């Protein structure tokens, strides 16, 4: 090869090398134009279910909504008929509609009753280059809505080209906290008790974007209150208003 024999490289070989170099540069260009967020280094694990929709990379501000659980993985079983996986999906659909009303694009990681592995949720979110990630949960005790951010120490230094899979969220903790504060503020404005706290909720640690998990809870002993469309609508509207404000689209009336 010509790089082993410095002085005998032919003009044809040099031209071929130049062409190959140009081709490599062109292939790398789209990646360079991608959003500045660094993807986590670890490869995503195998998916257990197909994603609901392909990523819309062209969107400027994309919210990924993650209705927790699904399929055989029911989450909390408040009763045989009232399952966490169903509550989170219903709330996720309302949130998507509320965001659409405010001009914010959003996708659901699942829009049906099927399971997705926890790491796969993070991998799909990161692959979609999400601007924000919102996981939805339901659980006791009530009555406040809890907004979780990752329970990680802040990143000690500026990240390099890659983020570690297990602590990718550390770089985004400040922005995740700001989002959580906004959501709690909007919930308070609607007289829905809410609290922001750090929590070890999977897969927040591996999300390479501002990320929160919102957990609705029952009013007193009435678990059915979480399925109340009015309650869900109020929570969805509050979260959407906070997100729209973060997206620079203002708060809805």
């Amino acid at each position, binding site marked *: 090869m010509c790089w082993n024999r410095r002085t005998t490289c032919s003009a044809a070989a040099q031209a071929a090398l130049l062409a190959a170099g140009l081709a490599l540069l062109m292939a790398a260009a789209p990646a360079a134009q991608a959003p500045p967020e660094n993807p986590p280094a670890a490869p995503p694990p195998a998916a257990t279910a197909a994603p609901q929709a392909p990523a819309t990379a062209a969107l400027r501000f994309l919210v990924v909504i993650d209705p927790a659980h699904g399929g055989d993985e029911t989450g909390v079983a408040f009763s045989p008929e009232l399952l966490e996986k169903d509550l989170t999906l219903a709330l996720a659909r309302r949130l998507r509609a509320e965001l659409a009303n405010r001009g914010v694009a959003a996708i659901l990681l699942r829009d049906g009753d099927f399971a997705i592995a*926890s790491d796969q949720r993070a991998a799909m979110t990161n692959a979609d280059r999400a601007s924000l990630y919102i996981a939805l949960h339901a*659980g*006791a*005790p009530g009555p406040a809505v809890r907004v979780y951010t990752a*329970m990680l120490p802040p990143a000690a230094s500026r990240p390099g080209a890659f983020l570690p899979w297990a602590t990718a969220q550390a770089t985004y903790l400040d922005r995740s906290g700001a989002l959580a504060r906004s959501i709690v503020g909007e919930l308070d404005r609607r007289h829905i008790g809410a609290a922001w706290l750090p929590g*070890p*909720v999977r897969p927040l640690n591996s999300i390479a974007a501002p990320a929160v998990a919102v*957990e609705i809870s029952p009013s007193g002993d009435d678990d059915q209150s979480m399925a109340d469309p009015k309650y869900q609508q109020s929570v969805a509207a509050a979260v959407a208003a906070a997100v729209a404000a973060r997206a620079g689209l203002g708060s809805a009336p």
Partner: protein
Amino acid sequence: MIPRHVQIAVVLLLAGIFAGGFYALRLQRRAQQAAQQAEAHPVAPSVSGPLQKVHLWIAYDDDGVFRPAQAKVELPQEPSGRATGILRALIGEYLKQPSPHPLPLGSDVRTVYLVNGLAVVDLTPAFADGHRSGALLEEFTVTSMIATLSANMPEIKQVKFLVDGKERETLAGHADLLSVYDVKTVDQFVQGLQ
């Protein structure tokens, strides 16, 4: 024609086989019951050692807070047994009736490995399999254990959980058991919810 004494021998043999099988089944069932009772038995006392005061961080589900408490338990000098004993004291509080933060029967710590400031806590299968599901409930269990360890053994800087000697994704669907917990971050959380 089969001779009479052969017929009697065959019948006796069959009866013996049936009786032996029945007895074996009963023994097997009894062994299973004994194993289940052992699993559901309240937390075993720690290995013997001098009676010592330990600090506990106890979670209260209804109020959504942690409260400090103290208990006197026998603790060995050896660090691994000491950490196990401290966590058993906390779990013992949760297994009392009424409990501020109920755990399933059979909840216990199999052992705690200590390596250079990292504590690896190995839980029994009953602990995780029977744990109530919910982000906050699971978080309270994990963080109260970490804060209790930290309060008594400040040399522990990180904590990791195993269940029955193996890695497990979550405690009961929410709380991350794959991650290594930073003790300082957890302590801040627990002390902030007093």
